[in-house]
């Protein structure tokens, strides 16, 4: 386990260096921060003055070296737009993005596992209800998040007027962003669970259990589903990155004060320090969750434990 953790940490370090380097140069290749700050009405002299003021006129390699040295002391730089430390902005908003992600993940698990289990337990003889449910899951998987968001708002805020949808103003404003984000994952997870359950039900150990007189519910609940969930555990980990990328759209539509909307705004304003801080923090989070899922996968699957020993 210790060796695995060390390997993961080394991977994370390499990933972060690669990411920061790529981002640093890519951002500067696509936008001129001084010109963005000055605006199109400025004179070239004013842009040059801004460049000198913020050290943007120094050689790029020197700016990069200073940036990396700052990162080593957790100094992510300062937003040239708001004047605030870039990391402070991210830290202020991150809990709300994580909250949304956690809620969406919980809702995904609550919905997708039973749906998947039900769909997968048909054993090749799906009735009309299962066929309809499969079709709905299939369609939902292809539906973009912003369409789901706008539909939800149209139904529950505009027509029925049951729910508010702007910002983070209490529990009722959490519902639609959560459902929107979960809509990314529920169909995926449900299909994986369904396929895994169907596969597990065809295994020898299920036939043995059935021959021993186990009930259908017992077979599914005690034998097939736990095995089916092993594959799903890995999916949940990898889908965390999808959740965070989905938050960019979801947060913009719902005016949710998370890092997704911060990233959109920072990108539009060529606020490089903030873009970089958001990207690094998200990368660490995704990596951590994926590594956690890997570890959980190994802990849950006795075959992997045995292989290691």
């Amino acid at each position, binding site marked *: 386990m210790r060796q695995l953790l060390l390997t993961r940490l080394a991977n994370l370090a390499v990933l972060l260096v690669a990411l920061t380097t790529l981002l640093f140069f890519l951002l500067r290749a696509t936008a001129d921060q001084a010109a963005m700050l000055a605006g199109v009405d400025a004179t070239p002299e004013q842009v040059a003055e801004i460049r000198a003021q913020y050290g943007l006129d120094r050689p790029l390699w020197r700016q990069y070296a200073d940036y990396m040295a700052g990162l080593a002391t957790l100094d992510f730089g300062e937003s040239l737009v708001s004047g605030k430390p870039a990391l402070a902005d991210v830290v202020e908003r991150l809990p709300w993005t994580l909250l949304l992600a956690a809620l969406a993940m919980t809702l995904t698990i609550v919905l997708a596992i039973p749906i998947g289990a039900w769909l997968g337990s048909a054993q090749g003889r799906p009735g009309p209800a299962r066929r309809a449910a499969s079709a709905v899951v299939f369609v939902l998987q292809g539906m973009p998040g912003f369409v789901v968001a*706008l539909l939800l708002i149209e139904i529950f805020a505009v027509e029925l007027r049951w729910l508010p949808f702007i910002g983070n103003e209490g529990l009722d404003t959490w519902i639609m962003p959560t459902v929107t984000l979960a809509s990314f994952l529920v169909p995926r997870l449900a299909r994986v669970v369904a396929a895994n359950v169907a596969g597990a039900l065809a295994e020898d150990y299920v036939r043995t259990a059935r021959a021993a007189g186990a009930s259908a519910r017992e077979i599914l609940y005690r034998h097939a589903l736990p095995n089916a969930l092993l594959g799903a555990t890995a999916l949940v980990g990898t889908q965390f990155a999808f959740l965070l990328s989905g938050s960019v759209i979801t947060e913009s539509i719902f005016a949710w004060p998370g890092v997704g909307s911060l990233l959109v*705004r920072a990108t539009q304003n060529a606020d490089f320090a903030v873009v970089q801080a958001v990207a690094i923090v998200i990368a660490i989070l995704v990596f951590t969750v994926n590594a956690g899922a890997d570890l959980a996968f190994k802990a849950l699957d006795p075959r992997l434990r045995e292989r290691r020993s």
Partner: protein
Amino acid sequence: MRPWVPGARLTGLLLALLVALPAGAAPASPAPAPERGFRIALYALPPGLGNPYTGTALPAALTWPALFETLTVLAPDGRLEPQLAVEWRRTDPVTWRFRLREGVRFSNGEPFDAAAAHATFEYLQTPKGRTEAAGRDVGTLIAATRVVGPHELEVRTKEPAPLLPELLSVLRMVAPRAWRELGPAGFAAAPVGTGPFKVVSWEATRVRLVRNPLAWRPPRLDALEIIELPDPASRVQALQSGRIDAAVQMNPDDAEPLASAGARLIVRPGGSVLTLQFNTERSQPLRDPRVRRALNLGADREKIARVLFRGQTVAASQATPRIAAGYDPTLRAYPYDPAEARRLLAEAGYADGLDLTAEVVVGSGANDALAYQSVAADLRRIGVNLTLRTIPAAVLIRNVFGGGWRGDMFGMDYGTTPTLDAMRPFRLHSCLWPKRWYCDESLVPLIRAARVELDEARRLELTREVLRRTHAAAPAIFLYEVVMFDALSPRVTGWRNAFHTIDYAALDLAAD
């Protein structure tokens, strides 16, 4: 085999977990907006928060009038009106005297007087102030300011500045003591101005404000919330659901969905003309005026105005909108004449057509993407294959200052605000711009003379001469006069938005 359905206990447990998780992490729900509160949704809050030196244009211009005021202010019809200055006069070619309004106080109790105004101007002379957005025009133009009396300020400019009072309509007056004590970052979080409202909290996607009890123009409302809602469809839905009272930067197509909720869409001039600007420095075919004229004749601008904007704007006849000083009513828009366009192209040696590329930023104005596509479709009929390449605004700005264009033309407006002066965009769209894309040397003396001409009639004549020559030379496809759409719930009264400056003091909500 009987299908397995999750047991009620398990479902209940998971649902309880779902509810308990947020409840544990939840902040105390903020109190609902007071009864006399107003909610407005913007596509973005000011990136520089409450530091009014960091911007003069969109999106900041929409928020700051709630907090700050200026010496002068533009009315919706383009007239200049007094705000913190009650009158002004020129005492010599480079000196202006402003008499300031008496009895005005900032929201922290500091008096607004000539010394306070002087401090704002003085900051723009500092190295940091010179690079602020607010210093772009004013800071570089001002030589010095002097307090003549408690409420009289003298402003000296480096060269004759006939439009200084108009320029000052975007310079917001800042409480000097608060600025000194809080510093730029502190002030940005807790701004202090003379405006009708003051900040309660500046949050990630919303600003909460309450009535400024010291305001000389007391607002009719008790509270104001300015919400960042970047998605245009969300802004429509927010109005339809009654969650907000007003929204800006809407589209003409929003009229029907808004009308179904009783909301209304109102149109206002944007003070600019959208163009597809030719880059004659880069594009060989576009150096030929016959080709440039052919492209103007081949684009059906009337259709864009009539169909895409439902007749709420007009095809641009020249490089400036009707509301700007210097507009020449005798100039006519190039007619849509594909036959003549083809003839001109053939005469220029392009009888078989030509391929061109336009770099465009889309989404910054109502239906701009559709307008560009409409032009591309029209030009195809005269044998011009126009490829539209979408670029981010950041790339456009980088190219403006650094060159690096990759197309034959690019989408850009000829903006006249805040001076509403037709000559303003020619600083960019002429030989005067170091990284120029179009240059007609014969216009330079006229542009320079108009900029400092104090005699208004003469200045307007110089301006019209530039516009006439530009019309003939066709350095761009002048598409249409930019218009902006605001959406209001049926209860809103007193709405006044002049060139992005919303009069928050006049805003009110009628009783249900």
